[in-house]
Structures are given as structure tokens and as C-alpha cells.
């Protein structure tokens, strides 16, 4: 079979960084080709170059035997379309309007468009709500609309950059069914993902990138998960989840009958030294529960006990005062000041510690302390004055850990802390977390959609569904099936 798309010796250099150091790959029609690699391996850069939005420093993109110059419009015209990791939809438009966005020149009347979208849905088997403005729809549905939009262009090459990172299991299944269907129609599909089990589920071939270089392209039958991982990272990680925390019997936090918008939790306990996992689908109330505990979501009724003492939390300020710290899900938008330095990001909540006369910050003490903390979380302290935006996902997360170690932590609320972080950094994150748990004696509430991770790291798991806890399991009761069953199937009266 002839390759529809080839990249030849692609190099991409940014000032000070070589993102791609000469990568060549071939893509065939009717093939799902996964690209895997750690954060910063160059996956996104590669597909941005293929889709025309980045210009390579050197090298060629050959499409259908001819060289393709860079430029998004040119790539689209040739039939190369990309679904970005971030949404590219207009929130106030409905699905139909979004699908036709930018193609108004086809000048169909509204009726014609509605009909066409219906045909498209029938043909592709993707059925979505076409009437509601998409801002009222779930993440999974939005993702499917993005895909519909791309399919509407009838692409020959379809690129998906981390399509599964923000949608739940059920929607992932739907997505994969659709991809299989497109494969039959001889579309070449390129998919970037962090989830190796997905690679084995869906891909025909897989390319491993590491540090801007291609390590290998393999047929999926010829590799194992363990081999892929060892190609992705320098060292072969035996234990991806180093759980070393020592839970105690001492109760740290008890929640009774908490009601907040989207959340109703009757009973939840966290002991000192423990990691308590919250399982559930996206939108099942886990994030909302953490926000309520953190004072970011108004608690309507109920009680919170910290060290057996009833506390009132009505703002993040209150919880921070008590050492309850949240690392939210979308760290770039909700936690970090990307255009400011590491030091700035670490100390911002606790500047009073370094205050002198008139609230002037003693920057020498601040720097010293920040360096200590960065060393502690194993982050390169020499980058202390660099902007956080230059850091990888793993390092960004370390900066946040360092921030919340600055002043006597008591409870960490972690919302998807390893999302978008590579395998190596995940392991390191948990190692540092467990160290902190053991030395400082904190408790952790961990929200994660990565079930293997949750099962490996938690001492107890509460399963959320429709805003309430529907099941709780002690570590000796852990099983994949039971958690999934509770997550997906428990009957709950939806209020």
C-alpha cells in the first residue's frame, strides 16, 4: 500500500530548544496510527506541523506524493484536518452552526444545513444534540461535535490530539467506534494519547517519540505495554505507582451531610497519612465536592470537622488558613500565573511570611526558601526566575506542590493531578507526595479518572455518581469491576 502522508526528516527548533530533531514517519490510508511519548517528546509539535499550523525548521511533509507547504488552509484543502486538544467551538452556537462555521460559502439555507447535519450523523453514527448551544453540553458531546465538524470536511488524514483526556469512558467507547468506522472508509487517522491501554485498544501501528526523536514505529501486535513504556522513557520503570504512605488511625477530616450545588455527601472520613480516592465519571460531583471543601463552592448545609473540631469554611482564604490546599484540575488556567516566575508562583499565597516593614517582601529570604522547596520537590531550582509557562506539565505540578508545602499543610485536595503529565513525572509526583505525607503527616483526597492510578494509590475509595457517594471501598475490597459498576450503574434518584 502507498503512504498517503509522509514526513521526512522534520526538524523544529525554537530558541534554546530542539523540539524535533529529524523525525520521519509514514501514514497509510485505513490505518489508525498512535503517537506516544512523554510530555515534551514532540508529539504535538509534529502534528501541528502536519496540520500546517507550524512551519518546520527543515524537512518536508509529503502528501499524496507531492510536497505540502505549511499553512492551515493549504492542509485543509488537501484533506488534512486536526481536532485540537482544546476546544475550537463557539460556545453560544449550536452543533449545526458550529459544524458549518467557516463554510458559510456553501450558502445553504438553514433547512438544508439541518438536513445535511442529520445525514452526516446518520452516515457517521455520531448522534449529538444539534439544537442546544454547545456551552450547555457536556465535554464528551463537545468532543463528538468537533469530530463531526472534521468528518464533514471529508478528510483523508484526520489528526486527534489527546481526544480522550477530557471525556469519560462511555464517550471514549463511542469515539473509538467512530474511528473504527472511519478506518474502514480508508481515512488515515493519527491519534496522540497518554493512555497506553487506548493505544492497544484502537491503534494499528504506534510511533514512539522521545526527546524530539523517533524511537520506533511498530505494528501494535509486535509490542507490549511494558516495551512501549521502556521506549518512551530512558529507564524501565518497574513500579509506576510508588505507594509508600503510612496511614494512621487518627481522624483528620470528617464530613457530615454536606449539601452544596451539585453535591450531597452524607459521610466521608480522611485519616492522617491517608490517601482517599474519589472515583466517578466526569461531572459526578467529585470536583464540586473538593470545591465545596475548599470554600470555592458555597456550602448550603452540613458539617465539616477538622481534627474533631467543627470548622466553617466560606472562602479559599479560610481553608488555606487551616492548611487545606487545593490543586485544581486545570492548573494552567486555575492555579498558575504562567507569565510569572517559579518563585512568584510558589510564594504568592504566603508572602506575609517574608514581609518586612510596610509589607515589603524580603526577596532574599523568599528566594532561599523557594530554592529549598524546589529542591524538595525535585524541580530544577536554577530555573527559579524563569516563567512558569516554559515548564513541562510535570514541572508545573511540582511548582504547585512546592507552593503548598510552604506553610504547614494539613490536607491536600488533588483534582486530576496527573492529567497531561507523562509516565515518568507521574511516578515522581506520587513519590514526592508520599514522602510529604509521611514526613508532615498530611491527608490527601485524590480525584482521578485514571482508575489504575486510583486503585494503586488510594487507601480508601469513595465512588461518586450524580453528586453523591454511592459506594465506599477499603483497600482490601478494591476491585476494578466493583468501582466501575458503582460508577456506571448504581441507581440514584436524580434530584
Amino acid at each position: 500500500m502507498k503512504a498517503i502522508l509522509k514526513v521526512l526528516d522534520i526538524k523544529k527548533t525554537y530558541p534554546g530548544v530542539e523540539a524535533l530533531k529529524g523525525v520521519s514517519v509514514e501514514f497509510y490510508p485505513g490505518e489508525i496510527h498512535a503517537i506516544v511519548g512523554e510530555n515534551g517528546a514532540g508529539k504535538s509539535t509534529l502534528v501541528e506541523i502536519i496540520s500546517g499550523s507550524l512551519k518546520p525548521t527543515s524537512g518536508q511533509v509529503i502528501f499524496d506524493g507531492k510536497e505540502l507547504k505549511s499553512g492551515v488552509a493549504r492542509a485543509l484543502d488537501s484533506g488534512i484536518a486536526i481536532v485540537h486538544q482544546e476546544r475550537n467551538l463557539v460556545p453560544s452556537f449550536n452543533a449545526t452552526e458550529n459544524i458549518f462555521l467557516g463554510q458559510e460559502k456553501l450558502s445553504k439555507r438553514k433547512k438544508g444545513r439541518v438536513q445535511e447535519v442529520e445525514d452526516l450523523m446518520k452516515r457517521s453514527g455520531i448522534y449529538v444534540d444539534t439544537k442546544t448551544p454547545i456551552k450547555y453540553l457536556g465535554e464528551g458531546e463537545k468532543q463528538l461535535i468537533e469530530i463531526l465538524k472534521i468528518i464533514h470536511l471529508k478528510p483523508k488524514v484526520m489528526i486527534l490530539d489527546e481526544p480522550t483526556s477530557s471525556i469519560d469512558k462511555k464517550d471514549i467507547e463511542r469515539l473509538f467506534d467512530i474511528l473504527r468506522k472511519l478506518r474502514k472508509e480508508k481515512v488515515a487517522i493519527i491519534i496522540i494519547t497518554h493512555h497506553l491501554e487506548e493505544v492497544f485498544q484502537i491503534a494499528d501501528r504506534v510511533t514512539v517519540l522521545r526527546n524530539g526523536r523517533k524511537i520506533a514505529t511498530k505494528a501494535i501486535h509486535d509490542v507490549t505495554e511494558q516495551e512501549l513504556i521502556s521506549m518512551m522513557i530512558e529507564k524501565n520503570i518497574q513500579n509506576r505507582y510508588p505507594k509508600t504512605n503510612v496511614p494512621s488511625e487518627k481522624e483528620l477530616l470528617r464530613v457530615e451531610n454536606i449539601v452544596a450545588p451539585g453535591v450531597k455527601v452524607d459521610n466521608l472520613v480522611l485519616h492522617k497519612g491517608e490517601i482517599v480516592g474519589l472515583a466517578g465519571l466526569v461531572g459526578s460531583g467529585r470536583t464540586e465536592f473538593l470545591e465545596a471543601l475548599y470554600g470555592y463552592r458555597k456550602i448550603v448545609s452540613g458539617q465539616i470537622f477538622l481534627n474533631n473540631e467543627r470548622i466553617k469554611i466560606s472562602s479559599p482564604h479560610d481553608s488555606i488558613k487551616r492548611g487545606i490546599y487545593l490543586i485544581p484540575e486545570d492548573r494552567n488556567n486555575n492555579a498558575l500565573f504562567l507569565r510569572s516566575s517559579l518563585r512568584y508562583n510558589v510564594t504568592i499565597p504566603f508572602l506575609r511570611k517574608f514581609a518586612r516593614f510596610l509589607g515589603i517582601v524580603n526577596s532574599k529570604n523568599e528566594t532561599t526558601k523557594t530554592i529549598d522547596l524546589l529542591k524538595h520537590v525535585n524541580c530544577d531550582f536554577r530555573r527559579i526566575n524563569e516563567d512558569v509557562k516554559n515548564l513541562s506539565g510535570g514541572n508545573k505540578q511540582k511548582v504547585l506542590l512546592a507552593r503548598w508545602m510552604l506553610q504547614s499543610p494539613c490536607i491536600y485536595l488533588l483534582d486530576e493531578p496527573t492529567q497531561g503529565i507523562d509516565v515518568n513525572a507521574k511516578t515522581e509526583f506520587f513519590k514526592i507526595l508520599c514522602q510529604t505525607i509521611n514526613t508532615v503527616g498530611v491527608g490527601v483526597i485524590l480525584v482521578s479518572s485514571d482508575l489504575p492510578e486510583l486503585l494503586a494509590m488510594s487507601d480508601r475509595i469513595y465512588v461518586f455518581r450524580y453528586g453523591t457517594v454511592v459506594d465506599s471501598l477499603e483497600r482490601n475490597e478494591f476491585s476494578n469491576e466493583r468501582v466501575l459498576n458503582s460508577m456506571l450503574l448504581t441507581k440514584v434518584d436524580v434530584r
Partner: protein
Amino acid sequence: MKIRDQNELKSGRFQLDKYYTFFILLSIFVLFSIASPMFFTSRNIINLLRQISMLTIAASGLTICRAAGELDLSVGGLAALTGIIVAKLMVSGINPSLAVLLTLLVGVSFGMINGLLVSLVKVPSLIATLGTLSVASGLALTTTDGKAIYASFPKSFSFLGTGYLGPIPFPVVIMSIVILVTFILLEKTIIGRHLYAVGENPTAARLAGLPVSFYRILAFILSSLAASLAGIMLAARLGSGQPTAGGEYLLEGLGAVFIGMTVFKPGQANIFGTLTGALMIGFITNGLLLMGFSPYVQDIVKGIIMILAVIAAVYKEEIRL
């Protein structure tokens, strides 16, 4: 911690593009010095600094507001209004210091209203302050029927606008103090760090436990305070309360802030950047005047220079509104 560690810190390579606006300023300076023999004389330079002193003071307030992520369009109207108020108070024979103090208090309350509108009522600052701009200029005009208030001000008051400290005009002294205070506030204190945090990412600031509304209100108060000070000094300088004076502080002040956002700390409003912007505006006004161009031409040139200055920063996505 050993000192050695601190020396190992990556100090960041010297980045030329951080200073390129500053080089534009220098070239303008050199250009005018060549074009007009009267430009680079100590007399003209001192004169020039005095000309930009009130603008720079108003722009310092705008810098703080912008650091907190907000825009304050009401400064132009407020400068006129406070000029009128202080003149009227003076006419009524009140003690000059008390008059200045009362006027500044009016400014603070005005800023408080802006701040409350933006942070609690949640009107976008662009719209809220456009409204209060109109209210302030309207008030200045209705209370005076559009006519200037002339009075023979006490010497101690006129000194604010016309006095000298040795060879240095007193407005330049006040400007220097305002710049210094703003610098310390923004760059050295907790408040400054927090203001920038609120400006860069309000959600992250709130989740880090910072009182976001408080800082927004504070930013508007400081901005109004600076505009009021400029308005008072302008009245002292002109020797009268002019209901339309100070209008240019809005456009030129914002211009200075935006030019400033391209230099030293690209993407962030910063006081020395703002000073660079104000100087650029001052050089152009003064230089073109010396070369015999009409004031109308100055506006055209100022507009073009401002756009040219921010193009590079916009291109690198360092300036967003």
C-alpha cells in the same frame, strides 16, 4: 542556603527585545537633538519634564489599574472635576492644604465607586469607567456652566504647579516621588505582587486565597487618587479651574501605559515602562513643536508611534486586553 546556590541561578539571558522600545525612545531623543539645536538643552529638558509630570502621575495610577487587569477610562474626566473642585474650594477661602486634602478625598470616593461597580456589581471596567468618565466631565461642566474658574490662588497652592526646588520644577519633584512610590508598591510589596496576580489570572488568585475584589477596588482608588493629584496640580499650574482640562490624560496616559507594557517587563504594566511611554510622548510633543509643526500634526505622529511601539509586543502575544 549557601550563597553559591544563588549565584548559579539562571539570571535569564540578556534579551534585547525587552528593551527595544527603550531604544526607540533613545533614537527619538537623538533624532530631535540633531534636528533642533534647542532640543537638547538643560532648559528645554527641564521644561519637557515639567510638561509630562502631570501626565506621568495620572499614568502611574493607570499603570496600577492595568497591573490589576483593569482599565480606568474615567481619569480624564476626574482630573477636570478635581481641578474645578479644588479651585472652588480655594475661592471659598478655605485653607489650601485642607482644600487639597478634601479634593483628594473626593478622588478616592470616586475610585471606590469605580471599584465597587467593577468588582461587586460586575460591570466590565471598560463600560463602568466609560460611564463614570462621562459623569465626571458632565459634573465639571454643569457646576461651572462650562466656564473656567479664575481666582488668585494662595502662593502655597500655586507652588504645586509653578514652584521650583532649586533648579527643579516642583511638579517634577512630585512626579519623581509618585514614580518611586508606585515602583515600591508594585515591585517590592505584597500588595504589588497580589495586584499583578489578580491581573494575570483572577481565578488562580482567588484559589490562592487572595481577596480579589479588594485588590480591584484598591486599584481603582489608587488610579483615581493619581488622577486627582494630577488635576489639582494642573489647576495650580494654570491658575484656574478649567472644566475641560486634563482630557488628554486618558488617551496619552493609556498610550504611555501600553507603550510601557512592551518594555522591561513585556506584557505587564510597569512603572518604568510607563515613564518610557510618557517620555516618548513628551519628546514628540516638544520636539515637533520646536521644529515648528502644528499641534495637530503631533497627535498624528503620537498615534502612529504608539501603534508602532506595541506592534512587536502584540505580535508576541504579550499585550492582550
